């Protein structure tokens, strides 16, 4: 019972982890992308479109599904669609210098709406066969270690590896240094000869693409290929997780597991309905507490990027 709970917590956390890793990249460049929920929806839509095309290309022969291609095609299409959402957001906020909050919220409504509309036109027959490939565990052994850590599909590990890689790039490479500088002080970065606009676009598009994989995971892995209109709720938690992890993707791994555990905890307990709903609220409350604590401690490193939410215009001195 407890093992299954832990296992499912880790599994569920993957949605948040993809979302928050992507959002962290975007926020590090000084862009608060509140469009993440919509972008995760678009990622899910993209994944479904891709898989549907894949199934068509192999002639609907479910026995011939190749696990590797299925997963890779899903990821690529999810990133493509979500990246497109990121590109729209980037164009609005980087080139046109629109208000980031308004643009982000617009992308959220846009993404969710577009997804809910077009998903009806996607042929989702055979998705349960595909989902089997996504959820195929690394090991089927029955001991506690395998149950918790080795029983997941490929995307779970991809999320963790991605988070670690992004954390490494942020901390240890010039690319990360330049990106952090842009989020902190774009004028300084510009004067130092960094291509500010280029970095911002890449981080918006790439960040959104990574967030989008979260949507794909939710549909293909967590829901075993069925559809549910609740991805945007996960998206908001992913945005909250970025704050919870104080803009560090490696901390986000632990944070996402906590969020995941709290989210599914009600299903493993016999609490009354009211208590269950309260437990579901805890992640949001915890995020607020983290915000309060970080602002009380006032350590400069755990503050949001200084230029977060501000448009950069070179001529403005």
């Amino acid at each position, binding site marked *: 019972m407890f093992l299954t709970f832990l296992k499912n917590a880790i599994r569920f956390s993957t949605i948040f982890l993809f979302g928050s890793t992507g959002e962290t990249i975007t926020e590090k460049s000084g862009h608060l992308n509140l469009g993440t929920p919509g972008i995760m929806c678009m990622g899910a839509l993209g994944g479904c479109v891709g898989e549907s095309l894949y199934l068509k290309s192999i002639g609907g022969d479910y026995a011939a599904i190749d696990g590797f291609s299925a997963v890779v095609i899903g990821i690529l299409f999810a990133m493509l669609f979500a990246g497109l959402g990121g590109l729209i957001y980037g164009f609005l906020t980087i080139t046109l210098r629109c208000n980031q909050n308004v643009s982000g919220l617009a992308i959220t409504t846009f993404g969710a709406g577009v997804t809910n509309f077009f998903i009806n036109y996607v042929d989702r027959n055979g998705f349960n066969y595909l989902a089997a490939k996504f959820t195929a565990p690394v090991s089927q052994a029955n001991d506690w270690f395998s149950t918790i850590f080795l029983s997941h599909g490929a995307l779970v590990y991809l999320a963790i590896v991605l988070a670690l890689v992004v954390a490494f790039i942020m901390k240890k490479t*010039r690319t990360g240094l330049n990106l952090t500088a842009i989020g902190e*002080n774009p004028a*300084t*970065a510009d004067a*130092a*000869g960094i291509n500010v606009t280029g970095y911002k676009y890449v981080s918006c598009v790439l960040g959104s693409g990574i967030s989008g994989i979260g949507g794909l995971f939710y549909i293909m892995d967590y829901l075993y290929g069925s559809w549910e209109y609740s991805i945007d709720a996960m998206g908001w938690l992913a945005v909250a997780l970025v704050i919870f992890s104080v803009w560090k993707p490696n901390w986000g791994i632990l944070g996402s597991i906590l969020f995941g555990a709290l989210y599914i905890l009600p299903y493993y307990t016999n609490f009354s309905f009211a208590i269950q709903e309260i437990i579901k609220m805890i992640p949001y409350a915890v995020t607020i507490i983290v915000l309060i604590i970080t602002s009380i401690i006032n350590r*400069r490193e755990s503050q949001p990027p200084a230029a977060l939410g501000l448009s950069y215009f070179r001529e403005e001195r």
Partner: protein
Amino acid sequence: MEKTVALELKNITKTFGEVVANKNVDLELYRGEILSLLGENGSGKTTLMNMICGIYFPDEGEIFVGGEEAVIRSPKDAFALKIGMIHQHFKLVDIFTAADNVILGEHMPRYSVKEEGKKAIAAANGFKPVKPAEKILWGLKLGLKLSALPFIKIGKKIKFDYLAKSRTRKITEISSRYGFDIDLKKKIYDMSVSEKQTVEIIKVLYRGAEILILDEPTAVLTPQEIDKLFAILRRMRDDGKSIIIITHKLNEVMAISDRVAVLRKGEHIATVNTAETDEKALTEMMVGKKIDLNIERAEPNDVKDRLTVRNLTVINRDGMKALDDVSFTARSGEILGIAGIAGSGQRELLEAIAGLQKTAGGDILYFDPNKEDAEVDLMQKTPVEIRDLGVRLSFVPEDRLGMGLVGNMDLVDNMMLRSYTKGRFVFVDRKNPKELAEHIVHDLEVVTPGVRTPVRKLSGGNVQKVLVGREIAAAPTVLMAAYPVRGLDINSSYTIYHLLNQQKEKGVAVIYVGEDLDVLIDLCDRILVLCAGKVSGIVDGRGAKKEDIGLLMTKLTGKEADGETKEAAL
């Protein structure tokens, strides 16, 4: 030592709209020298330097670097020509360490696969194989080498991108060579102003600059830190670097520079060897001859003390004293001018009186004209508290559209900023402000399509008229105006002078902060000179000499003037 020219400016002209910032400036900078650029506020020093380092582009004229004509369109171009500028406002990322700030934005050394391939082929051609087996082996080797090149490039890129521990090595070399005393692992937000400046200098040196431009580097430093900076500058000079230092302080000019170039109103007056000149001669060059402006000045009548500031001290955000022990009295029916180099504490002084600035010590006393001998203490009061005390204080701030008016609101709404509490219940009174706005537009000849036009759409002079008009309409007893004619054309300026004079005749104590010494001398009854937050003298407006004020601003004959101050204050 043989003198070689490092940088030469010929006939440089730059205009912003109708304002001429630089006019036909010629300047030469030699290798291994320190050149001081001296001039009053607005004499075009910073504009000139910004053209050298690529922030502005000159309208006319040529720049020669190392004898060759150079086109500098961006800071990047300037870096390529080994020119580096240290701005007054540091460009540093706060949460980074000193070392990270220095290496920020550094580009990888060029590595082209094509060129490297050509090199490899050229090297291989030197070897002439004889046997066929050797020939095959030779071809194989070359092929392998060539196909490895892209991977070498990727490898180099990864190696460059990875921030190894060794990233501080090259920086340490530079800092020990010039004797910088700095901890490279310290975060910028933990640093003092002087340390931040050091990081900026290291940054410029790390990029290989041969010509360094420092914009008022000493303004924010303590005397000990200035000595340290000068020692470093001398060491860099001896190392063959050329340095331009912008400063207002004459004693520093004499101490550090080899030559001095003087700018006045955008024009290059002269360049002299420091050894052959003295501070007095430089001041005269800097301020120029007195120009008569024909501003009418009435004799003050019914002069009474209205506002007394005693031992006022203000500490600014950097922990430095912005105002140090400032004492003076503003009297009714008089215009008190405040002169000083920009940033000498004028802003803090006015804001402290207006209740916008936290003070560290001293007294601000107000004498109510209606009640005899009634003193009101204005220290640490908010603007609303001051108003509720019945003190009619009007303030025309330096930052018109930031502090004075709201750019997106129309004239009427801006009038209401002073009267929004009036009206019935929750409804505001719009009628009176509208009348007031129309009144101001009519009386002060404000050019505007109507009173419903957002003030941001008006020109600078009209914005200023609206602001001054509103402040005067409050029937103040003390009127403070900071740079009210900045950016205004001659006619608007005279309108403002006239308004100030009218207020003076009405018995208002006017405090006028200005930068043009000619205006200050012609307009004001007394002139208080600030220098680095201290009062360096109070002189009588009638009969004051421009040179004397110039010297006081740069604090030269401080002691003599102090004596006069006391007499004037008594």
